[in-house]
């Protein structure tokens, strides 16, 4: 189980960042997207190999109208 954008999610054994992105319908080359795990930025170059710990808080953010 991880917490993905505020919601508890079970990734069925795919507890990787790619699994989390896939659960949001994002491809690894999605434009204008950034990821933080437990408050730390994970650069895009590390997405493919990044394994998520149980209970990891994953935030996947993108551009919204604002300011």
């Amino acid at each position, binding site marked *: 189980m991880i917490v993905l*954008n505020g919601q508890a999610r079970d990734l069925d054994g795919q507890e990787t960042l790619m699994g989390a992105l896939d659960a949001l319908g994002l491809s690894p080359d999605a434009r204008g997207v*950034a990821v933080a795990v437990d408050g730390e930025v994970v650069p895009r170059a590390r997405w493919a190999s990044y394994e998520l710990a149980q209970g990891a808080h994953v935030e996947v*953010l993108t*551009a919204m109208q604002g*300011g």
Partner: protein
Amino acid sequence: MSEQQVQAGSDTLTIAGRELRSRLLLGTGGFPSLELLAESIQASATELVTVALRRVEPGGQGSLLDVLERAGVGLLPNTAGCHTARDAVVTARLAREAFATDWIKLEVIGDEDTLLPDAPELLRAAEELVDEGFVVLPYTTDDPVLARRLVDVGCAAVMPLGAPIGSGMGVRNPYNIALIREAVDVPVVLDAGIGTASDAALAMELGCDAVMAASAISRAQDPPAMAMAMRRAVEAGRLARGAGRIPRRRYATASTSDEGLADFG
């Protein structure tokens, strides 16, 4: 600057070495549709627009960035909604990752009703982000001392408020805005509080180097028309500032000489 310079676009604004021909920054929040946002960007002639960072909605991302890319404008990500230095710093790092820009409009909010900045947290976040190589443009109060402190830690510009965000109350303390202009040697961008074109003109007449408008345009009944009005107000205010206004007097000063005045007996 002269009218020719303003018209020809040679009266440029330089922030952290980047030249901008438009002195109007546009917030993208509050537009009823992306079409109206695109039309307003065009009417405003802005070259720099703010964007926020929010959670990805499955199937929803991309279109805003497409619109902004087509418009050919630069992105100024913000940290809107952050209440602590830590949140703002992490958000800025994420913005750098997402949009490949070191520029950040730093907002650290201290009060829900007024959305006024939290000065100590703002200063802390600014210092940390400058150390990390960001070009920091802090949204700040109209306090000249805080503005100077922000510049002391390395901010590339300061963005004092005219009035609370989205309030449309204009420039509530013109004396402080003028003091800020004198207190710092980086660009001053009037941010927040603009309600209509005359507010933007006043900010420029007070010596601001640029104006940022969001709600005043996006929530106007006709956003593209208001965007055009803001563009012209910023130009008019800039010209008036350079032209040098007459001093205020309590009594009339005739503009027509009495010399040669007829005497009808």
